[in-house]
Structures are given as C-alpha cells and as structure tokens.
C-alpha cells in the first residue's frame, strides 16, 4: 500500500514506473494492473474553469485512504494498491488522482481500483474550489454520501 498527498504537479506514469520498479520488482505473480487517472476539466456545469484549488484535512485524509485501500484489499485478491492525490492549485489537464491496483488476474484489479476510487469520492476529506470568470465557487458532491463510512 502506498498513499501520497502531493502539493505540486506530478507525472503519474513516472510515479507508476518508479513504484513498480522499487516496490514490486520481485512480485512475479502479478498478472494485471488496473490504473485510474483523474485529470482536471476546463469546463464544469456549463462554465469555463480557469483553475481549481484542492483542499484536504491532513491526517484524516491519509487515515481514510488507508481504510479505503484496506477495505478493497479485504474484498478482492489484491497484491498491492496505491493512491496519489493532488492538493493545492491545479490547472486544466493536470493529474488530480491516480489509483492503481495489481493482482494476479484482471477482474480483481479492475474491481479494486473502481471500489477505491468510488470510496475516495464519497469518504476521503478533499474539497474542490473552482475559479471561473464570475469568481470562486465550491464544487458540489456528485455522489450520495455513504451511510457506512465508519465501517470502511
């Protein structure tokens, strides 16, 4: 498991290669890697977005990301999973979140990456503030808040 909160632009593909080479180099039972990369759009709710500021709750963020990965690891036969998430000011097309899962077979990797990403969206304490021509606005959540976050 690896979690990183990053306060500057990052190259997700370089991070993946570095992690694979350093932490998974002897894991020869890996047969699948599923990757999700979320990037910033320059349009939302019909308005042009100039930049976006990502805020988070230090300590709680890392703690919940750990719980989220642990929950996916318990449910699926995962060899390893990582989550990297940007904070600070991001620009259109910048990477925001990278989730990757490695497993022996594709199904577990696909499912674990999806579960981690969906749980992150509803539980991990991050908030987005968009800058438009009209000023700043906080982004509204797009998914229902999970009722069982304490069991994650």
């Amino acid at each position, binding site marked *: 498991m690896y979690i990183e909160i990053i306060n500057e632009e990052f190259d997700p593909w370089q991070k993946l290669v570095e992690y694979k080479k350093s932490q998974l180099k002897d894991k020869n039972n890996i047969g699948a890697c599923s990757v999700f990369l979320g990037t910033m759009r320059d349009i939302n709710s019909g308005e042009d977005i100039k930049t976006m500021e990502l805020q988070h709750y230090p300590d*709680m963020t890392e703690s919940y990301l750990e719980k989220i990965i642990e929950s996916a690891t318990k449910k699926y036969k995962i060899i390893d999973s990582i989550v990297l998430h940007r904070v600070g000011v991001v620009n259109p097309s910048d990477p925001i979140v990278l989730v990757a899962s490695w497993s022996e077979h594709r199904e577990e990797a696909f499912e674990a990456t999806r579960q981690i990403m969906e749980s992150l969206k509803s539980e991990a304490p991050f908030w987005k503030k968009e800058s438009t021509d009209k000023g700043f606005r906080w982004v509204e959540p797009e998914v229902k808040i999970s009722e069982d976050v304490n069991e994650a």
Partner: protein
Amino acid sequence: MYHSLITMIIVVKYFASISDALGKTSETIDVQQVKTAGEIWSDVSKNIKYTGKVMAAVNHEYVDLNHPLKNNDELAFFPPVTGG
C-alpha cells in the same frame, strides 16, 4: 439537582465552504458541560448563514451530529467531500 462542574477543551477545525463562511480555519473552545457535535455546531455557526449539509469528524473519524464530545477531542466541521 446537583450538577458537577466540568471544563472541556475542544479544538474545532473548519474546512472548505464552512471555513470560508466562518472566516477561520480553527479555534479552541472551552465547554462547561457535555455537548454533542451538533450542539457545538449550533454555537459556532449562530452568526453565519450556512444552509448546506454539515459533516462532522471527531479525532479524524466521521461521527453523527449527536456524538458527545470528550475533553481534548479534535472536532471538525466540513461540507460533503468532493475529491477525486
């Protein structure tokens, strides 16, 4: 009826639109009786107009607003999360 006098110190943190509405990111408050997260929210938000949903966490765990606070707890109020 006899009430024992207690003093609790609670660190309260605010994030995102709630922090903007209050004009601060944290404060330390003294409370003289056992209070729930919701009662503290009513106290700290009485002078602001915030109509959105309020989430609460105590010591980095999500809690319901009826969760009672203990001395030296770290309480946080924030809107629904929007990461990813």
